[in-house]
């Protein structure tokens, strides 16, 4: 097996607040292979955006990376200096933010913003900059006449596309996207996701992608990671997870949104609300809402167990499988 492009090991992030430290991410480990499209789903507050920021080394206080490694291209990015990171960003990996449409500088034309990015990474020839900017805009389906446009002259969908064009300027191997389509309408969203998927397959970069929308994940990603309360609840190839969801939370999610075709079924939803991460439930963090809760669940913290090609953090699968990940610091999480 070849080395993964991105290898995240035991990543833990705390938010330091006056009321005490909040463990937003606890021991998150996963890999992204070359040319892989990985979707992360979860509810608001489950730590999915924090995970992306931690991976991209963009955490700002009160967020603090308290443990773990982010190995990108065989190099641990945790602890790199600002200058070293600047060198990697845009060139080796780039990030498209949630409200990417507001991430563009309103005072500068699209061309000027592209130029800044290219110049920061050593391209100085005017012609080259012009040519590359035109290329990427065409890639995402925007007419290059808009190079001279300012962000306010473009629609939301076009701004979002321009951001993606910018992320592809230096042909990075990993593009990190935080809900890039959540501010768009269904039709625009579908069209943009199709574009991203097509570019990803044609240009061969990997995508790490966060969303709360199951339908988007199902259609476009190779692998799905379901997050709950700062942990990975389940991780599996897209088809596997939609055909045979293992974790009760994943199953609940599958039954929580109505279908557009087929018979109308009663939806159950999941009772209760996501936990407050300042005081996560003991044992399995999902047990207060879990329909399949057992006596042991409030007491024992589940590991990620391998089962039928999936990794699942649920004690239902504890007997029949080996823990997928060796925990380095199990004691750390037991603290109240």
């Amino acid at each position: 097996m070849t080395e993964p492009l991105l290898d995240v090991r035991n990543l833990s992030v705390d938010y330091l607040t006056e009321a005490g430290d909040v463990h937003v991410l606890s021991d998150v480990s996963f890999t992204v292979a070359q040319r892989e499209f990985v979707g992360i789903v979860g509810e608001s507050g489950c730590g999915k955006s924090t995970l992306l920021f931690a991976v991209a080394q963009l955490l700002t206080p009160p967020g603090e990376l308290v443990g773990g490694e982010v190995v990108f291209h065989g190099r641990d990015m945790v602890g790199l200096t600002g200058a070293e990171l600047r060198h990697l960003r845009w060139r080796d990996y780039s990030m498209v933010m949630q409200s990417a449409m507001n991430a563009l500088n309103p005072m500068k034309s699209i061309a000027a913003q592209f130029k800044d990015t290219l110049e920061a990474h050593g391209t100085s020839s005017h012609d080259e900059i012009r040519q590359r900017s035109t290329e990427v805009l065409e890639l995402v389906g925007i007419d290059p006449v808009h190079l001279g446009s300012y962000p306010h002259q473009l629609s939301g969908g076009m701004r979002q596309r321009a951001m993606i064009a910018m992320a592809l300027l230096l042909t990075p191997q990993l593009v990190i996207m935080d809900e890039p389509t959540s501010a768009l309408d269904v039709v625009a969203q579908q069209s943009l996701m199709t574009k991203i998927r097509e570019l990803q397959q044609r240009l061969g970069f990997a995508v790490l992608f966060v969303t709360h929308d199951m339908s988007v994940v199902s259609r476009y990603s190779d692998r799905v990671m379901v997050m709950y309360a700062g942990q990975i609840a389940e991780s599996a190839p897209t088809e596997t997870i939609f055909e045979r969801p293992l974790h009760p939370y994943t199953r609940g999610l599958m039954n929580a949104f109505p279908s557009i075709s087929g018979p109308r079924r009663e939806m159950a939803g999941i009772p209760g609300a996501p936990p407050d991460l300042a005081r996560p439930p003991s044992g399995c963090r999902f047990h207060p809402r879990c329909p399949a809760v057992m006596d042991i669940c409030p007491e024992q913290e589940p590991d990620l167990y391998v089962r039928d090609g999936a990794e699942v953090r649920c004690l239902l699968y504890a007997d029949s499988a080996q823990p997928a990940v060796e925990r380095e610091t199990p004691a750390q999480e037991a603290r109240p």
Partner: protein
Amino acid sequence: MSPETPAASAATAGDEPLVRTVELTKHFGLGGLFSRQVLHAVDDFDLTIAEREIVALVGESGSGKSTVARLLARLYTPTKGEIFYRGRSLRSLRSRKDMLWYRGEVPIVLQDPFSAFHPVFRISHGIMRNLALHRPDLSREERRAEAERVCEAVGLSPRMLSRFSYEMSGGERQRIGFAQALAVKPKLILADEPVSMLDVSIRAGVLNMMAGLRDREGVSLLYITHDLASARYVADRIVVMYAGHQVESGPTETVLSDPKHPYTQLLLSAVADPREKSSELSADTGEPPRVVNPSEGCRFRSRCPFAIEKCGQVTPRLEPIGEALVACHVAAAQGKAAGSSDTAPVTHT
């Protein structure tokens, strides 16, 4: 309360629906004092809502669906057209007493449950105030009992009444929004995207609660959403809006299983069902229009794969095709050619 229109004198006739709008139109002036730019938010919109009916109003952002809700709630006054509530024109509501009565009959639940409540007051405040305003005949004890009843009706414990809004989750807050609306004994609740800001796992509960309100409390609902799947889940009838125009309406299953308007077809193709194998994807870039000083013609024509010359000249009117009402020249022509039979008019693959 002098009757201004013939329909108003008809009062609550047996065949008069709960709400009926006739050529409802709302325009907004843009720019400065001398600007001639006019945004056509809603144009010639005809909608009926029967008693105990759930109608879903579906469309993209900017299609004017929230404007329709605000017009119905009398937060906006229409530029043109009429709204009849039980046969009575809303233009005849002038006094404060009349307005209070109407707002009690037709309350609105807003999209964002996180900013809809005053953080200084307990949850009971809004509900009790509604009760005091709209149902002054109740005694203090009765009001308290009623507040607890509506709390239970939306699936919350009465203990929630003494909480503050910031102590509650989004789903709980949205339920409180419905409890406040229920407290006034409404006939119709206008729900403007009530679940779009909620997490997936919570949405199902709120949708079920909405459907339950119709069954148990006998209210009608106007459910405004951009999510066709959830519209299908709760609604009896679907009305599809595009750029201020109604483009298609009909019984939910009819519209979704056999959409006649190209825009409805596009919307449906954009909705992926995770439990199904992915269907074919269209190449539409999905740019919703901004309807400033529009010219005559169908507003979907620039995106429409079936557009003909007539689409740029004449604005299509709603015409019945089968069980649905459709505003499309092409679908209408094909509907007639097929002898208004059940063959699918616009073939879309």
